[in-house]
């Protein structure tokens, strides 16, 4: 490592800016990237003899004052760049421009395990965007570190055109890319798709990944032929940290709390009391469960005052054996307590398309989230021509949630506000999810500068376990006795109700092999690259489900048992053998074979990547239902030929124009094709649909990119997507009377188009980053309603309704204002994220979709250097405690006033959640040699 600092590989220019004869002079300058001429913010300038140093501002400039005349060694370093060690004579005020050379070669389109020591920086992120073959947006590790976001799910909403679907604790869980929800996107780690812990679908919960192990997050909005095709909306690629050039340590520890926890405390139950296995799994199919098989401690809540959130992260990297071996290890731990309140009053359909509220729920949630992740990345240069790399990540999320509900029946016996039948619920739900992914990769130069081969062998496994979900219930309330006219309402005894204990477990295992072969050459002065490759994946998933119903034992005199705490609850097991034969006990396989050919060439200023990809999918499932039941098992297969072409026209050094076309697919999820049968409501049955077809799409993109100044960029883009056979829920005839089922179906064609705008600029210590996306989508599906015929009888109707895609907001905007003062060692930013009105939930009933109102979230983060290698930071999320509100655009017809409802407004509030502010403060240690 010592050798490296002696190398002088940069270029520099000096000009004198004053000719004064004073003894003290100033040195001003700007540090630039040698290739892109981008100003490098945060580079370090050291004068060894004087023990003086400084670092560059956001626009790459620096100033060193009061330098006595003399000749000094200047060392200019920036992580990921080759350090310059040089000598300047300072005899007057001087201004210097220094060009630093990137330590790594240009990034390729395929993300491979090469050495990209600088990948964490924002500059690198921007350069990747500029150089990428596809339309990309990138968030760098530096940007994540500086942001208030502690999970990948939350960080993603900073990307233009991306909004997030939140988990019940308010964290971003799934990315909605340009209005296309998680069904239409895929999630990659280091460019390779990973297994899903979801029990029914193929989604990856992005809140499982702590953001601090990530070098950068790439959102690809167009595809090239070498990318997997199930990304109509796009891909989210998490690139893990690479080994650095020299010893690098980044560690932080912090603590914090949630405003709501501080205010209301936290209800905790012991996770250790949960039986991880159901009586059926623990004792075998012959076993009859007894009341003693079901624990009680897990339903005993202890109210705690404000437990503290803790966070710790550590990344260590170095290179050994003359830089041939690079190692990067990382670990992250987060333990977060959240508590929040929700009111939930779902709308009920009444004949004639009317809406009323039956249940009004007030729910207090207490959630403890424990995230742990480890990653390791090793790369080894066997020789100049052969490199191998191995990396692995393990991400683990435990989510222990207590939910205490008060549910008031808004119908009789409620006669006036303040009265009614009231249920009390206490639910304990503990979910343990993890994803393990390991990849062995190799890069081989077969013919120097001509023929290259790379390959990946991937093992990925995901698991989710939700053992013993339990929600006890008792029913009392305050209302008058109907047989005692004029009597005052009184508190009715809390009568225990039946309740369920449910176990879910699923695993998802992927084995993937990928090979790419590329050939470079030039013909008639046209450089080109031909790449061919293929992928094979074998997926196997197993789902287990067990459900038991517990019923309260009446008192010895036959009267109903009342609530006297969970430890006094006497229950019997209604179905002692469990529910082994349920559809939810299923196994599924999927094999995907893909091959592609891609040609990249550059004629003058036009760079073209064109090619075609073929993907063959074979899916099957096997359930534990009886052989007499239709659809016990099934399989389907299909093949797609997917052409694409990406043009990038370099109008000049600072301007790109991109034009691209690609076709993509979306596969039905594993469980959607299982013809399960769930009598969810009185009106209809929800079914799987083995005949649902996969969706295909044609996608067009145009983007204008203007890198006006090294630290200023402007993107203006537009996109258009035509989706054939989109999979949406709607009604279908069953052949069973005139009854219909609610199931995933293909609904003709849907269109989705929009505009994107990204702007970034840095002036001195200030910077602004902003993006805005307009999206319009529309799809038509069948809905249910009913009407009264002239003869007085009612009839069903299944009208079509056109609406935007679920989760798609017309307006999505982000603004971040940044401040960086290197002298003070201070970084700060305030961010605003806005997601416009959108459908939170598609209702099966005509004109009864659930709409989320527009939501503005302000966050704040700051970091200040306090000593060599040390800094302190604070993060505040959700500064203004934004409310999450969901409405149905129909007034309620209830006779007795419903809380929070204003029928005159013409709409009905069905949900309001307040998550509260989240504060975090800590110390970071960064060492880089």
């Amino acid at each position, binding site marked *: 490592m010592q050798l490296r600092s002696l190398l002088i590989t940069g270029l520099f220019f000096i000009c004198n800016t004053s000719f004064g004869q004073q003894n003290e002079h100033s040195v001003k300058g700007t540090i630039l990237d040698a290739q892109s001429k981008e100003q490098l913010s945060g580079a370090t300038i050291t004068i060894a003899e004087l023990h003086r140093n400084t670092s560059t501002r956001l626009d790459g400039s620096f100033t060193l004052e009061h330098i006595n005349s003399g000749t000094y060694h200047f060392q200019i370093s920036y992580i990921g760049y080759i350090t310059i060690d040089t000598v300047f004579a300072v005899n007057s005020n001087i201004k210097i421009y220094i060009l630093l050379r990137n330590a790594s070669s240009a990034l390729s389109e395929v993300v491979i395990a090469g050495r990209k020591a600088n990948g964490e920086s924002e500059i690198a992120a921007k350069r990747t965007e500029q150089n990428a073959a596809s339309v990309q947006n990138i968030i760098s590790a530096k940007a994540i570190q500086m942001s208030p976001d502690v999970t990948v799910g939350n960080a993603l909403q900073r990307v233009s055109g991306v909004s997030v679907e939140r988990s019940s604790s308010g964290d971003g869980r799934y990315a909605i890319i340009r209005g296309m929800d998680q069904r239409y996107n895929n999630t990659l780690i280091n460019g390779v798709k990973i297994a899903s812990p979801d029990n029914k679908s193929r989604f990856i919960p992005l809140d499982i990944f702590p953001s601090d192990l990530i070098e950068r997050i790439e959102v690809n909005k167009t595809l090239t032929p070498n990318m997997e095709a199930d990304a109509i909306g796009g891909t989210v690629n998490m690139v893990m940290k690479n080994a650095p050039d020299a010893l690098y340590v980044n560690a932080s520890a912090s603590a914090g709390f949630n405003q709501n926890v501080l205010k209301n405390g936290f209800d905790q139950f012991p996770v250790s009391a949960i039986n991880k296995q159901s009586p059926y799994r623990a004792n075998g199919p012959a076993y*009859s469960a007894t009341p003693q098989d079901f624990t009680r401690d897990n339903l005993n809540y202890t109210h705690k005052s404000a437990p503290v959130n803790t966070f710790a992260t550590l990344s260590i990297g170095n290179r050994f054996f003359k830089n041939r071996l690079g190692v990067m290890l990382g670990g992250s731990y987060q333990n977060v307590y959240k508590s929040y309140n929700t009111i939930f009053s779902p709308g009920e*359909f*009444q*004949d004639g398309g009317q809406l*009323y509220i039956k249940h009004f729920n007030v729910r207090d949630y207490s959630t403890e989230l424990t995230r742990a992740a480890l990653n390791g990345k090793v790369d080894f240069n066997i020789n100049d021509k052969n490199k191998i790399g191995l990396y692995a990540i393990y991400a683990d999320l435990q989510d222990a949630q207590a939910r205490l509900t008060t549910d008031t*029946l808004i*119908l*009789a*016996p409620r*006669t006036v506000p303040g009265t009614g039948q009231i249920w009390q619920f206490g639910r304990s739900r503990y979910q343990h999810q993890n994803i393990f992914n390991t990849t062995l990769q190799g890069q081989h130069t077969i013919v120097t500068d001509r023929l290259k081969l790379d390959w990946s062998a991937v093992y990925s496994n995901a698991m989710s376990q939700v053992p013993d979900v339990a929600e006890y219930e008792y*029913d009392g*309330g305050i209302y008058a*006795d*109907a*047989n*005692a*006219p004029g009597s005052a309402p009184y508190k*009715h*005894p809390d009568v225990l*109700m039946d309740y369920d204990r449910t176990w879910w477990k699923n695993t998802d295992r992927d084995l993937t092999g990928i090979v790419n072969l590329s050939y470079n050459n030039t013909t008639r002065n046209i450089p080109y690259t031909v790449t061919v490759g293929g992928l094979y994946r074998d997926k196997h998933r197993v789902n287990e489900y067990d*459900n038991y*119903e517990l*019923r*309260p034992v*009446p008192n010895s*005199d*036959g*009267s109903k048992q009342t609530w006297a705490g969970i430890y006094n609850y006497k229950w019997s097991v*209604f*179905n*002692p*053998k469990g*529910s*082994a*034969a*349920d*559809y939810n006990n299923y196994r599924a396989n999927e094999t995907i074979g893909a091959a592609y050919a891609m040609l990249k060439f550059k004629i003058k200023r036009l760079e073209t990547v064109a090619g075609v990809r073929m993907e063959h999918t074979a899916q099957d499932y096997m359930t*534990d239902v*009886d052989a*007499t*039941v239709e659809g016990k098992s099934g399989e389907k297969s299909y093949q797609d030929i997917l052409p694409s072409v990406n043009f990038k026209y370099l109008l000049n050094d600072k301007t790109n124009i991109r034009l691209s076309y690609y076709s993509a697919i979306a596969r039905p999820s594993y469980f959607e094709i299982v013809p*399960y*049968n769930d*009598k969810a409501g*009185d*009106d209809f049955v929800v079914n799987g649909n083995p005949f649902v077809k996969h969706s295909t799409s044609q996608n067009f993109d145009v983007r204008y990119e203007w890198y006006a100044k090294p630290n200023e960029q402007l993107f203006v883009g537009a996109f258009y997507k035509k989706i054939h056979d989109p999979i949406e829920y709607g009604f279908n005839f069953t*052949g*069973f*009377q005139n009854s219909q089922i609610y199931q995933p179906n293909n609904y003709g064609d849907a269109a989705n188009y929009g505009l994107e705008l990204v702007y970034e600029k840095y002036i001195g210590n200030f910077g602004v980053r902003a993006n805005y996306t307009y999206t319009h989508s529309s799809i038509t599906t069948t809905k249910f*309603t*009913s*009407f009264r015929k002239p*003869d*007085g*009888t*009612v*009839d*069903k*109707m299944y009208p079509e309704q056109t609406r935007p895609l679920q989760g798609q907001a017309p307006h999505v905007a982000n603004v971040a204002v940044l401040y960086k003062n290197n002298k003070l060692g201070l970084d700060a930013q305030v961010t605003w994220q806005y997601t416009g009105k959108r459908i939170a939930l598609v209702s099966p009933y005509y004109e009864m979709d659930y709409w989320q109102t527009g939501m503005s979230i302000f966050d704040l983060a700051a970091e200040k250097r306090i000593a060599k290698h040390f800094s302190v930071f604070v993060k505040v999320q959700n500064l203004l405690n934004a409310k999450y509100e969901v409405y149905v655009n129909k007034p309620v017809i209830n*006779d007795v006033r419903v809380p929070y409802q204003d029928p005159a407004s013409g709409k009905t509030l069905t949900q309001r959640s307040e998550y509260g502010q989240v504060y975090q403060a800590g110390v970071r240690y960064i060492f880089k040699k």
Partner: protein
Amino acid sequence: MKKHHFRIGLIAMIPVVMFSCKKDGENTNISKPLTIIGQSISDTILPKKDASGNSIPLKGTMLAGKTYHIMSDVTINAGDTVYVQPGVKVLIHGDGLSPETSPAIYVNGTFVSQGTKDAPNWFTIYETSTVQKSNSTYKDDAVNDPAYKGYWGGFQCGKAADLLLLRWTHVEYTGGPWGANAADYGAKPGDPRYAVYMNRASGFSKLILEDSWFFGSKDDCIGKCENTYVSIMRNTFNKLGGQGGEGVNLKSHTFGDMAYNLSYGIATNGLKTAGTDGVNTLVNIYNNTLVNCGFRQTKATRNGSINTETNTGGFIYNNIIVNCKQGLRISYQSEKGKPSDTLNTSYGHNLTCIGRGTVMGPADQYMLFIEPNQFTLKQAGDLNGYTNGVIAANGTNAGTNNPNDSLKYDPMFTNYDVAKNSIGKEYRNSVIPAGADFHLKAGSPAIGAGVYKGGTGANAMPSKPTAPVLMQYGFPMTILGAAKPTEFDAVITGPNKDLGAFPTDNSGNQHSY
């Protein structure tokens, strides 16, 4: 409509002789011929197995006097018929603990159990040391009473079932859990099976339950039948539903009559109809007697006698309700249901009696004549202690129940002292007292209080010209009847001038206890 195979069998059959005729007090009884359809079923251990151990579907005739043992699930294929001659005893070997050990009879064709008053048929449990029957010491013990154990799986009628006819037949101890084929019957594994479930994929199934006894079920007895024509007449329903469940629970798209039934000690409602949005359901409910129903249901806001909700209608007349949680409810919005089809509902002349001498307080389960704030009104001819209140814009009624009207509407049963059976928590006692007789004593307010064919003035048959569909189906309906009924048609008894299932002219329910 598909031709039933059993009809072919009928051609070869000696014509059915009419039931005994009554003329001037002179009685003549001649023996009735036995019907045989298809082959005789001589094996008494069922189902028979083929060489590889698979069950052979059942068809043919179960022979009078024989005792059959059902060891595992029995299936009747679509188009096939099983005919049970009078005096057959079927013992089901089950323990109710798992689907495999709770055999069911799957009916995809036709199942006819033709018991007679003198030679009834039995479908009951095979008793062992661990599988025991209930007895009269279990008065109010939902947990331990074997009546609610659900030892076997009942009659599960599939998508193609034509007819289930149970006449003078005992069906006992049903409710064993669903297994792997639950989805075919709209259920989930682990759910309890009903004694009878019917839901045809196209057209209508026919369900005729006459003069039979349904005793002991884990959940609903006649459960959630859809797309079915029904005639449920002169039956006794007792000890049904452990801690929830209805005696008869008819769902959407059912049409027919429920009359002259005695419902005694049912967990929730004795007789209930509940449709779905946008689907019509019309069931006439008349001349039933319901006693001690609704008290084992743990969920509040469920009714406990006769209940209609979500688009159901029909003529509801001449019923007697004694010591039930609540009287008749024509539901508006309840925790479970949506508004009844009030246009196609016509009701009145129902007697509701509460036997408690005191106002029932918080510690007791109280009883209501009519639950206020639903559609139900006290109608002309009704006998109960409810005073109608203001009718709201949505049609509901906020009336009041007079707690002092205890015993005021005692129907005066021949041998069942309402006052005595109202003491303490006797209203929860599900055992029909030995020798109980629910006929009416002279002087009963229920005598002559009904609407009936030929009645005039207050007793005239109701008419509702504003509801053409209701009028078109009629009261009683004639869907399953015939002018000259064969043994495969329903024997329909029209409404009586007296209230309840046991009118003084003895034309109603023929059971004695």
